């Protein structure tokens, strides 16, 4: 699935955060994902069996909040997307009014494509929630 596919999704998709996560999970070399509320509670998760949802979601929400509060460079709640990479994989994090979308990617994942798709998904959620 391309970033454009997410971008052109109907606004209703932004209300159905689980469906949106399902679409993002179709990206090549994405191995897992979750949506977590700012208080750390899991809203939706599709993770590899060996990855525990609760501690990962608690940390993802903490990371998301840290980015939202980061400083004068970023207005509160306006960081749309971030990527954190190690040699063995990446975590992509998007901020929405509902909470944070976390995607896990293999090293082979096309970073630009994933970031673009996540950015588009975040925009979709914002548009849906603005209605």
């Amino acid at each position, binding site marked *: 699935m391309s970033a454009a596919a997410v971008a052109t999704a109907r606004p209703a998709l932004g209300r159905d955060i689980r469906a949106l996560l399902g679409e993002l999970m179709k990206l090549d070399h994405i191995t897992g994902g979750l949506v977590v*509320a700012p208080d750390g*509670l899991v*809203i939706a998760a599709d993770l590899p069996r060996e990855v525990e949802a609760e501690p990962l979601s608690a940390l993802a929400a903490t990371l998301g909040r840290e980015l939202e509060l*980061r400083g004068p*460079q970023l207005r509160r709640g306006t960081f749309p997307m971030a990527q954190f990479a190690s040699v063995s994989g990446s975590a992509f994090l998007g901020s929405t009014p*509902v909470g944070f979308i976390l995607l896990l990617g293999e090293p082979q994942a096309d970073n630009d494509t994933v970031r673009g798709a996540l950015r588009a998904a975040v925009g979709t959620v914002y548009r849906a929630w603005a209605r």
Partner: protein
Amino acid sequence: MAFARIWHMLGGGRRRRPTSAQVFRQAQRLRDDGRFEDAAELVADALIREPDSVVGHLLAGSLHMTLRETGQARTSFERVLALEPTQPRALLGLARIALEDGETVACRDLLSRALARYPDFPEARALLDVARGLSVAPEPKRPATPAATAVPAPAPTPIAAPAAAPAARAVPTATTRPEPATAAKELPPAERLRLPSESREALFMRPDATLVFAEPRGPRTEAVAARAVKLARIATAVLARAGFGPLRHAVIEGAAETTYLRTDDAALLTLAFDRDVTAATAISHLERVWGTYRSELA
């Protein structure tokens, strides 16, 4: 028919007011549907009728957090603890707020209390690991110390850098105000500190948040450096929980600019660019500056 009229007059036909438990369940459903304001309104109304409801205050705290109303969330969680001193979700909620506020010791205490009562609490354990890592870091105000450790060669990472680095500019020494005199000698020569002209901000620091270099430098620079280190530590914890190795690269898109981060066990570099600078160009700059700085520190 007459019986029905009498029944209605006696109040039997009147809809019963839902119990607080029913209202809280309804609020939880609204919350799950993303209707946070509606849920918060229901909870607030129910708490007027039942002010000592642990469930109600917990739900209120959770909703306030979701709405990014941290102060009100704190009040709700504190109310829960007044009613039930070891309530784990309230302890976790307050610990998260403490971590956000940089109150690491308070965060650790709250999480330890939660784990003492409920040892099998994976969220609390994950956050405590992060808080412990942060608490061992010295305050960022400490003067820089000489870099004594050898620097390993940067490992290849998923965010690959283009081979050619675009043109760079020399950093004006007037804006490069080093830390105390002891640190000044170790700073790379100004003529070798070449930053890309597109860069809006550059920070180079050690893992304990000791600032090595900043351009430009202002009154909040050290605080920003400390936050960058904190961010890197939380990100490393996220990666570890996902089964990945430690953080090496990050790209953080903001409203007006994008920050690129490069790090290893011994140092951390951030460069901020306007949003119109392409990722390829920015990463190319990042790798070149990283290589220069690391060789200077080795």
